[in-house]
């Protein structure tokens, strides 16, 4: 089980989002986050779905996405190096005596304070999910009042390190076993016994 970032280019048509989300639900695949937005081409939208699962399941997800007619292109960005960004808005409990402390904390994470209230502060932060999660953990002791995240958008890097090249296609599926057991229980009284596997 690991995190997969699927980059999906779709025709900008009504119902595409419902179609994709419905396919995930119908086949029992999980969606960790889903972001959809415009691209440079008004006819196309870009969707980024983060899904947690084993490689075989994610291969099925990718193939099933490919079958949806308005889906133009599907890539699993976690097979290569990529830039991923999540945007966080977090409102933290902040009495005046904590303002300096929280400002320093935000600075360390290159976050910005985007709103001050008498007893709260709103911090905006971008970065990969791990960084966002680390920051949220650090805010927790102060008291999180509200939290909102966009979910991950991602893009592959232009140059890929050699070892990160996608692996040659290796088919997966449920592993079969028990050859000897099956051979032993086959009827062999009326023919040459089957050679053991």
């Amino acid at each position, binding site marked *: 089980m690991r995190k997969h970032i699927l980059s999906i*280019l*779709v*025709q900008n048509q*009504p*119902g595409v989002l*419902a*179609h994709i989300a*419905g*396919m995930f639900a*119908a086949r029992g695949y999980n969606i960790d986050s889903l972001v959809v937005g415009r691209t440079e081409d008004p006819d196309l939208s870009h969707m980024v779905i983060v899904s947690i699962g084993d490689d*075989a399941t994610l*291969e*099925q997800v990718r*193939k*099933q996405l*490919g*079958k*949806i*007619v*308005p*889906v*133009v*292109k599907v890539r699993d960005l976690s097979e290569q190096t990529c830039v991923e960004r999540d945007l966080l808005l977090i409102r933290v409990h902040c009495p005046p005596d904590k303002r300096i402390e929280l400002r320093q904390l935000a600075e360390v994470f290159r976050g910005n304070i985007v709103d001050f209230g008498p007893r709260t502060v709103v911090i905006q932060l971008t970065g990969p999910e791990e960084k966002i999660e680390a920051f949220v953990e650090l805010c927790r002791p102060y008291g999180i009042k509200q939290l909102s995240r966009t979910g991950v958008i991602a893009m592959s890097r232009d140059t890929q390190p050699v070892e990160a090249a996608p692996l040659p296609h290796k*088919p*997966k*599926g*449920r*592993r*079969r*076993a*028990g*050859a000897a*057991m*099956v*051979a032993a*229980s*086959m*009827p062999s009284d*009326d*023919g*040459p016994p*089957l050679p053991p*596997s």
Partner: protein
Amino acid sequence: MANKPLPAGSAPSADSLKTQMPARKVVKKTGAGILHDILVEEGVEVIFGYGGGAIMPTFDQFYKSPVRFILTRHEQGAGHMADGYSRATGKVGTAIVTSGPGATNLTTALATAYMDSIPMVAISGQVATAAIGNDAFQEADVVGVTRPVTKHNVLVKDVRDLPRTIREAYFIARTGRPGPVLVDLPKDVQVAALDIEDDGELNLPGYRPRSKGNMRQIRLAAEAINAAERPVLYVGGGVILAEAAEELRQLARQGNIPVTTTLLGMGAIDELSDEKLALHMLGMHGSAYANYAVQGCDLLIAVGARFDDRVTGKLETFAPQARIIHIDVDPSSIAKSVEVDIPVVGDAREVLLEMIPLIRYSERAAWFEQISRWKQRYPFTYQQKDDAIKPQYVIEQLSRLTEGQAIIATGVGQHQMWAAQFYRWRFPRQMITSGGLGTMGYGLPAAIGAAIGCPNRPVIDIDGDGSFLMTANELATAAQYNIPIKVVILNNHFQGMVRQWQELFFEKRYTATEMVNPNFARLAEAYGCKGLELRDPKDVPGVLEEMLNTPGPVVVDAHVAREENVYPMVAVGKSLHEMEMGGLS
């Protein structure tokens, strides 16, 4: 007009308007008109449908039309007829229904076609675009309802998108892994005038079905076949859909490879002329020799099949000694449930054509000797009785009387399995049956669709009493258009397959499976069809012959042994070789 004022009170004449129109090519057609004309262009010869408010402008186009219109008695019937027509002919079937309940009634038929990859196009009326979302009369979110059971579906909101959308629907339905496509057509789009010449282009940047197989994979597969000592070809409906039966037969003969077919693959090989190679059906109710061969083979060559759970039994012990080659047009079918050693993505016919020249003949004497022992020891069989008609006997007699030349439709259940087991399948598109979804009530309407598509072949619906009664109203359709289908109801007054499971797994607690049926022969007569009854085993050949020789639609109510079971049977969760034989071997 603004700079050329007209005398007060006078309307502009047609001529004065014409001269002021821009000089582009104007096509004076409504949405419904353009739909009709594209259907004609696409080669649609027959439409199955049922009208209603939101589809009336489209229906009006068929008042005088080269396209034959078959009025069904239920939208599900229309869908199954389009599906049966498609399975029998290979052409895309077409159904037209109204909005709301018309479209939701069609859903079962779409799901049936989707599970079995049957190309059809359904057009549903929809309330006017302005009313969509307002809970208007007979409004339903049909695109939402049918999305999981269609290959593609689309709501047309602008008449300018209509010609392209209809062309795309037919293109998507018949290419790649085929399937049903639904076009939802609001009433105002049907009446809107189209003033732009359509350029005939499609806009499907993401739709690229693969037809040619990868040559390297094909060579690998051929090498594995040539090296195999105990290969088995496992052939599914994909071979029928790809029109690849001839190539499949060539491959089997040239490589001397035994062939087992799935329910949807029946007829891919001629079980009589290629008797030595034929292992018949495999799986839950497949032949013992097919199941043993799969479990004992060292190479399983799957062509156009998808390793359905009714075929594989327990996955962990499926074909445990075999390497697996999987040829399929749909990449998502490959490695979905079973690990595959040599995948080949491509159209079955194109891949087999490339593969055949690479295949060498091999005697495989020990393998065929083993198979023929299995065949002798465990044939499909049943115990004949004098005092009750055995359903298997009726099918054997039908097979004999029609010399395996009839198109056979079925419902779903015991009779369907017996038909697969005891009819001898000889040609592709011969068996018209709901495999994946298992839709009871499929047989009668599908037979009507098949008979309309193939008027020169006898078409027989082998049905069960439960299945038949789900769509029996379509006898009115058969009578109205005098469609010469023959229906043989293997009537055991039970929902038989469920009763069999109750007997085997629920200690004979027959909850809600016993049926008090109408007199089917008299019901048929009331619909205007010929009705016959069969109660004595001695009368079986005679009555069946009378049925076959009677013109027009005929229904035979065959009262069969009530608690007959289908064997062999692989219980759910068991391996393919762990078959119950029912004391028959």
